[in-house]
């Protein structure tokens, strides 16, 4: 005969209620990836489809959320998914300032409500030679920029990422080779282009931390590092602002960094790319396939010199 002692705790005593009531979702998320746990509870509602979307096959979420370049959380591709889990994105605000008539601070609530959320499926090409197709959620950056009314002096837009060494102990020049905070920039006309997005989510869920939560930039015709993550400051300026990768190595990473199969990175070819999840390589398209919409921004500009 087996005499069993009653357990001291019931499972429900030690398991958060929202976990056991959403057990199936929890299990599915846990199986997909540990980092996806927070992801499962955060559906965005009223997301509209956008005509700017590509009809290419969307990359699987486990690739997009487990393979990230976000050096503040480590230089390995899988590091951000492991290390960004506890990143605090509430409260959050973006300060928009500089050459504007109405400088303004947008808190997260305001950012989420600034414009109707759209799902836009964009190709995303990394300077390293891989690409993915991501269903971003957000709206055109120009919605926010118009609210602050850029003055006639504003010719460039400078962006700055969140940075603090307590939450991001790995974000040091020694560990990553980069200076912090991460900064990026666009010409004003690039920033105002409807394709340029302020993204607050992917796959109709709020932005996972490792993908640049809570709000990031998405510039689909430029190499991925231009799409700065976890933005805290946007400044409209007169002169071309410094950008992080350009500061690291100006010879290899230009201010423009438009996707261009004809201009190689000094150390590798940009003619082709590996679409993650696919076998083999595919040809890289000029402006990442967005030439019809953006090529006119660069008429008369030598793209070999202004890489």
């Amino acid at each position, binding site marked *: 005969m087996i005499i069993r002692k009653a357990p001291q705790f019931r499972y429900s005593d030690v398991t958060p209620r929202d976990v056991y009531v959403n057990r199936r979702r929890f299990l599915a998320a846990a199986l997909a990836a540990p980092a996806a746990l927070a992801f499962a509870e955060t559906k965005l509602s009223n997301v509209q489809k956008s005509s700017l979307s590509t009809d290419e096959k969307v990359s699987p979420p*486990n*690739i997009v959320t*487990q*393979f990230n370049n976000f*050096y503040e959380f480590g*230089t390995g*591709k*899988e590091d951000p998914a492991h290390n960004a889990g506890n990143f605090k994105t509430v409260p959050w605000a973006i300060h928009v300032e500089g050459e504007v008539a109405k400088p303004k601070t947008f808190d997260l609530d305001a950012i989420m409500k600034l414009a109707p959320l759209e799902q836009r499926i964009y190709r995303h090409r990394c300077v*390293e030679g*891989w690409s993915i197709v991501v269903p971003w959620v957000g709206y055109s950056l120009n919605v926010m920029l118009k609210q602050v009314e850029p003055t006639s002096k504003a010719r460039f837009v400078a962006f700055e990422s969140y940075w603090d060494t307590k939450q991001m102990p790995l974000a040091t020049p*020694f*560990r*990553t*080779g*980069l200076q912090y905070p991460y900064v990026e920039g666009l010409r004003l006309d690039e920033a105002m282009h409807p394709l340029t997005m302020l993204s607050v989510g992917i796959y109709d869920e709020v932005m996972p931390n490792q993908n640049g939560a809570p709000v990031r930039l998405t510039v689909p015709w430029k190499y991925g590092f231009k799409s700065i993550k976890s933005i805290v400051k946007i400044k409209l300026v007169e002169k071309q602002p410094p950008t992080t*990768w350009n500061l*690291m*190595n100006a010879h290899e990473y230009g201010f423009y960094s438009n996707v261009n199969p004809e201009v190689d990175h000094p*150390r*590798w*070819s940009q003619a082709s790319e*590996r679409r*993650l*999840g696919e076998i*083999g*390589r595919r040809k890289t398209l000029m402006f990442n396939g967005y030439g019809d919409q953006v090529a006119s921004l660069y008429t008369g500009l030598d793209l070999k010199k202004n890489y």
Partner: protein
Amino acid sequence: MVRWTKVLLFLLCLCPAFWLGWRALHSDLTADPVSYVTHFTGDWTIRFLMITLAVTPLRGLLNQPALVRYRRMLGLFAFFCGCAHLSAWVVLDKFFDWREMWQDVLKRRFITMGMLALTLMVPLAITSTAGWVRRLGFRKWQRLHRLIYFSAAAAVIHYYWLVKSDIREPLLYFGIFLVLMMYRAVVWLRKPARKAVHVS
């Protein structure tokens, strides 16, 4: 005894290959399996090169000259990983696009350097047998096998040139390489001047 420790070491050296195979079987090669396999095999090539170069200093410092018996196996594992690394590039990354690969070898200095590192290992692998030591004579054979210094240096430079911004790991290997070479330099300098002996 040596035989069994050799078997044991052989199995130990196979661990990275088993690990890679295990992850491959479970489709656990990250979102970019091609890069993962390439970097994994490349990392282990450099590690085995460093381990092989560490045998001589360890023999001296631990006063265990018998350790030399394991050196050939370690060196051949470096060559094996190097070949796997090259195959990953040829098959998984470029898929036999010989034209593009040839251009890369000429144009990309980190690939040129990697090719050099592996090419330098080829004569060492071929002449690794006891028969070849006899055929060449120990002195000549030893001199030939100093090519590993250049191969290891090329491998470290290859790694340093390919990383984007986080140079900590290539620097670490450079440091290890430097220490291993410094040991040899010190031993060489401490030896009584052979030339003088010959002259007299």
